[in-house]
């Protein structure tokens, strides 16, 4: 005899355990922006990692010559929507940081258009983050951050900076744009780290 009955309505049956607390599933892909969509020509695009020792740069062609991988992941927006099983293609930050040396433990992502967001370096490495250039098998749409966006799916999606241009190493975990203006310094959806 079992005291556990499934399918009797109520809470847990409908609750997908891939869904962090306070989140609702969506099928579409809402667009959230803090400003105009920057027009970034891939002929002029560059990606940079900036350390206390100097700057590593990749042009669009150099970037696309790097080994890339398919990424299947759930994404969680702080505005309470989650999207499960999204597919992306991009370059792992492990690849980009291969020859980068820095004494600093924190990273500020800086985007075309001026957006910034902070992430600790150890949350960007070991297969946790990518610079993505494709979504659903297509080049990344500008309104979703194309030509390239940061993808850090284990944190709320404001950390996955659209139109990413640079990762700047920094000695302290300084707050980025939304983090200065009310949002959590870290942003773990499983801990509901939404606001200060």
């Amino acid at each position, binding site marked *: 005899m079992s005291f556990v009955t499934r399918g009797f309505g109520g809470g847990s049956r409908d609750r997908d355990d891939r869904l962090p607390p306070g989140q609702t599933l969506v099928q579409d892909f809402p667009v959230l922006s*803090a*400003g*105009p969509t920057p027009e970034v020509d891939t002929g002029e695009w560059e990606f940079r990692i900036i350390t206390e020792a100097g700057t590593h740069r990749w042009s669009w062609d150099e970037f696309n010559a790097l080994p890339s991988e398919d990424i299947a992941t759930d994404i969680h927006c*702080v505005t309470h929507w989650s999207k499960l099983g999204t597919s992306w293609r991009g370059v792992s930050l492990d690849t980009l940081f291969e020859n980068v040396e820095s004494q600093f433990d924190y990273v500020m992502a800086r985007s075309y258009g001026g957006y910034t967001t902070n992430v600790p370096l150890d949350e960007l490495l070991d297969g946790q983050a990518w610079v993505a250039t494709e979504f659903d098998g297509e080049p990344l749409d500008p309104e979703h951050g194309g030509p390239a966006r940061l993808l850090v799916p284990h944190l709320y999606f404001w950390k996955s900076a659209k139109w990413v241009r640079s990762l700047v190493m920094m000695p302290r975990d300084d707050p980025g744009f939304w983090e200065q*203006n*009310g949002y959590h310094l870290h942003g773990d959806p499983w801990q509901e780290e939404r*606001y*200060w």
Partner: protein
Amino acid sequence: MDHLDGNALAGPLADYFAFDVTEARARCNGCGEVAEFARALVFASPAGTVVRCSSCDHVLATLVEAGERAWLGLSGVSALEVRRA
């Protein structure tokens, strides 16, 4: 992304200021322009409202609202000029 003009601020910011925000003039930290808030560009999204300078696009102000709490950021404004009655 579409934006509204600064008059759209009257609603959300009226709750936080005792004067008419759209008539107040603000000095932009980015370019130094002094302009009425009504002329600013307002980008509203579920994550928050972002107010940008119409001259240089610099972020003048932000508003994040979450239930009982709200965060009003004015990092891009060096000063506000308010009309006294």
